[in-house]
C-alpha cells in the first residue's frame, strides 16, 4: 500500500452467477482525500462499495482499509468507518432516537451532542418514526448518523439521491468539504458530476466492469481541457454492463 493510502483495492472482481460486474479493479485512496467513484447505472459502483466496507466478499481480489483486510476485520475496521447507503437502511417502524441510541452503543467515539444538533439543523424530529421522514430527511438523518461516530473514513453511496438542488449543493460544499478539511477520507459514488467536480481530489470511472479511468481531477482537467461531465460522457458513451 502506498504511504498515506487509507484504502487499497487490489484486483477486485465481483461476479453474480455468470454476470461479471466488477473486473479486476485496483485503486488507492489517499488519507484525507475525496475520491469520487463514477459510473453509469449498473456499472458496479455499489458492488465495489460493498466490498470496500466488508459487506460483500469479492469473487476475487482483496480490499484493504487502514492496512487490514476488510472482509476479515470488518467489525473492527468499521469503528473507524462510516457508511451512508443509497437508501436509508434503518428499520422504518423505529424512532429516530432509537436508532441514535443503538449507534451510541456501537461506537466508542459517538458524539450525541453533535448528532442532536445535526438532527435539529436538518429538521429531523427525534421522536419521529423513520418511516414518517421524507426522502430528503432520511438522507440527511443517515448522514447525521454517519458523522456521529467521527469517522476517519466516510463511504457514501449516491448520498444526494432524493435531495433537492439546494440541499445537494449544501451537502457537497459544506459537509464534504468540511470533512476533507478535517482530514477525513471520503469515498463517494454519485451521478451529480457538477457537485463533485469542485471537491473531489481524484476520480475513478467504472465502465464495462473495468476501471476505465483513475486520475487526479485537476490533472485530468488540465490534460483534457474538458469538464468532468464531458470526460465522463466520452468514456461511458459505450453500452455499460448491467449488474
Amino acid at each position, binding site marked *: 500500500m502506498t504511504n498515506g493510502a487509507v484504502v487499497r483495492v487490489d484486483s477486485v472482481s465481483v461476479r453474480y452467477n455468470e454476470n461479471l460486474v466488477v473486473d479486476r479493479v485496483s485503486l488507492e485512496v489517499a488519507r484525507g482525500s475525496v475520491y469520487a467513484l463514477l459510473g453509469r447505472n449498473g456499472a458496479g459502483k455499489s458492488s465495489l462499495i*460493498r466490498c470496500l466496507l466488508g459487506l*460483500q466478499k469479492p469473487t476475487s481480489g482483496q480490499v484493504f482499509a487502514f492496512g487490514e483486510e476488510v472482509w476479515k476485520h470488518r467489525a473492527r475496521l468499521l469503528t473507524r468507518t462510516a457508511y451512508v447507503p443509497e437508501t436509508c437502511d434503518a428499520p422504518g417502524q*423505529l424512532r429516530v432516537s*432509537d436508532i441514535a441510541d443503538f449507534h451510541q452503543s456501537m461506537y466508542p467515539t459517538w458524539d450525541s451532542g453533535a448528532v442532536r444538533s445535526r438532527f435539529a439543523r436538518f429538521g429531523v424530529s427525534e421522536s419521529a418514526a423513520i418511516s414518517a421522514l421524507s426522502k430528503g430527511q432520511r438522507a440527511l438523518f443517515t448522514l447525521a448518523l454517519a458523522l456521529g461516530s467521527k469517522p476517519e473514513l466516510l463511504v457514501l453511496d449516491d448520498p444526494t439521491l432524493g435531495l433537492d438542488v439546494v440541499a445537494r449543493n449544501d451537502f457537497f460544499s459544506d459537509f464534504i468539504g468540511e470533512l476533507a478539511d478535517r482530514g477525513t477520507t471520503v469515498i463517494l459514488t454519485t451521478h451529480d458530476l457538477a457537485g463533485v467536480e469542485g471537491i473531489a481530489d481524484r476520480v475513478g470511472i467504472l465502465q464495462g466492469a473495468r476501471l476505465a479511468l483513475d486520475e487526479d481531477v485537476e490533472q485530468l482537467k488540465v490534460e483534457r481541457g474538458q469538464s468532468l461531465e464531458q470526460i465522463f460522457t466520452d468514456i461511458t458513451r459505450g453500452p455499460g454492463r448491467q449488474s
Partner: protein
Amino acid sequence: MRKILAVALLDCRRLGFGLVSFALVAGLIPSLASGLGAPVSVAAMLVGAFAIVGIAAGGSFGNDFGDGRSSFFFARPLSTGALIAGRFAGFLALAAAAFFAFMASYWLSTRGRGVWSPSILTRAHAEALFDSWAISLFFGLAIAARGRASRPAGALRTLVIIPLRLALSLGAFILIFGLFADLVLRAYFGTVTPIRLVVGSWVVASFVASCVAMAAGRTERLRIARFQNRVMIAYFTLVSMVVVATWTYVLHPGSDAIQRVGNPTWGSPDGRFAYVSTTVDRGDSSSFQPIFVLDIASGQARRLNADKYQGPWTSADGSSLVWSEATPFFFRPLWRYLGGATSFRVRTSSGNVEPLPMPKKLPDFFTARDLASFAGAVDQVIPSPDGDVFAILWDRYLTFTSRSRGELSEIDLQPDRRSVRGAVFLSSGDLRAAVASGDSRLEFVDIDPKSGTSKTVASMEVGNLARIQVDKNAARALLTSVTQPGQGASISLVDLSSTGRATRPTILLSGVLFPSAVFLADGRIATTGGGSAGARDKRSLRILSPTGQLVLDLPVGEGTPPRLGSEMFPGVLAVRLSRFDEELSLVDTNTGAIVRRLPGFEAPMTFSFSSPPPPGSPAARLMQSADGKLYELASLTAEPRLLLPLARR
C-alpha cells in the same frame, strides 16, 4: 455484551408492542372459550402464543436481509456472532414479556382463579419457541435472499436443468421419507424418538444454515442463498445416510441380535423347525418382534422378513410356507402401479421362494387404517399341502388362488354375516372350514376351491364360541364355548367323519373354569379344567378315548386350573399344573404319573387349525423359559439344551 444488548433492545422496540398486545388478547381466549362451552387448555394456548412470538421474531430477523436492509447491521462495527446473539436475546426478552402479558391477561379474565405460575411452562413451550424462531428465521432469510436475487435463467436451463433437479430432489426426498416411515412404523411404532430426532435435527440444521449463510453472505443475497443451500444439502445428505444405515441395521437383524424369545413361538407341523418371535437388540421391543425360522437340529436361525401379523402360515404337513415379505410398504402402491409383483411369498417343499398370486382386487399394501392397527389387509393364507392352491381370507372374502392356474374362485361371506373361524385343507383337495353365522350357528363345510361350491359336514347351535380345534385329519373338532358369565365354560367333541346335517356335539366338560383340551397323537383327548363353578379349588386332568369316553382321571390337587401344553414325547404330555407356578410337568398319559418336573419352563403355544409337531420330533420338544429363552429337551432325562438366544462369545 453492550452491543448484544443494543441489538436485543432494538428488537424489543420493534416488535414489543405488537407481540405483547397479541399475548394480552391470547390470554383472554381460554376463559372466553370456557364461557362458550368449548374449553381450551391454557398450556396449549400458550404453546400457540409462543409459536406466534417465535415466528414473528425469527421472520423479522430473516426478513431484514431483503432489499439491502441487512447493511444496517453489517455496516456497523458489529460482528455476525453479536448480531445473532443480540437477536436471540431480544427474542427471549420478547417471549418473556409475552408470557407475562398472557398470564396476566388470563389471570385477570378469570378474576384471579386462573393459575399464575411459571410452572405451567414445559418442554413443549421451549420447543414451540425455539423451533418456530429457527424455522421462520430460515424461511425468512431464504425468501429475502431469493426474493429478487435470482436472475432469469436461459431457456435451456429453465426447460431441462431445473425440472431435472427438482425431480431428482423430489425423488431423493420420497425415497428417504419412505425408508424413514418404514423404519418408524416397523421398529419404532410405540415411540416418538426417531421423529423427534429428525425434526429436532432439521430445526438445528436450519438454524446452523441460517447462521452460516449470514456469516458467509452478510449482505450478498446470492451468497446467502448459496450457503443456506450448501448446509441444507449437507444436512440432507447426512440424514439420508443415517436413515439408510439405520433402516438397514435395525430392520435386518441377524440371529446374534436376538435377546429374548417371545410369543407366538411354535413348531412346524413336520417337526423340524421352530417359528420364533423375538426381541432383538435394536428397535422398540414393543413394536418390533422379528420372526426367525430355527432349524432345530442344526441350531441355525434365519430371520424371515415378514410383515407383522402377515405370516408365516404353514400347510398342514409343513411343506409350504406363506408370508408377506416386509418390503418398504410406503412404496408398495407405486410398485404395484408399475406392475410389480405382490409382497406375498410362498416357499414350497423344494425350497424355492416365489411370489404368491393374490386376488386381483386385494390391496397389496397397508391402508391408513391398517397402519394404525398394524393388522394387514389379509387375515390368513392357508396353503394346500402340495403348495399349489391357497385359501386367502381377507376382508369379507374367502378367495382361492393357484400358483399354476391363477385365481380359482371367491366366496363373499358378507351377506349372511358369516365368518371363517378356521380352515384346513383335506387330503382330497377340499378346504374344510368352520364357518360361524349369526350369533350362535356353526357349520363345518367342505369347499371345492375350483368352483367355490360347498357342502355341509356338520351344523350346530353353539354358545359363545371361544375356540375350535381340529385333529390331524380334521375328522373331529373340539369346541370350547362359554355359556354364561361366571358359569364356567364347556368343551364338546364333534364328529366330522361323515357328512351330516344337524349334529349334536358330545359334551366332554361343562361348567368348568379355564378348560382346555388337546388331541393326542394316538387319537385320545386330554382335557383340563378348574373344577365346576363354585368349587374353584377342584381341578382335573383327564384322558378320554377318541370318542370322548373317560379313560383316566388324574387328581391334581387344589390350586389354580392347569394348562395343557403339547405332547412332547409319545404318550408324554407337557402340562402346567398351576397357571401361576412356573413349572412344566411331563405327564405319562397312560399311567398319569408325572415323569419329570421342569421348574421355570413352559411349552410353546399351539394353534387351533394347525397340526402340532409329531410327538418326539425336535419341534415337539421345545420349551420356553420364563426369562425368554428357547430350549430343546432331547429326552426325558436329558438336560434342556439352549437354542436361542445364541450364546455370546
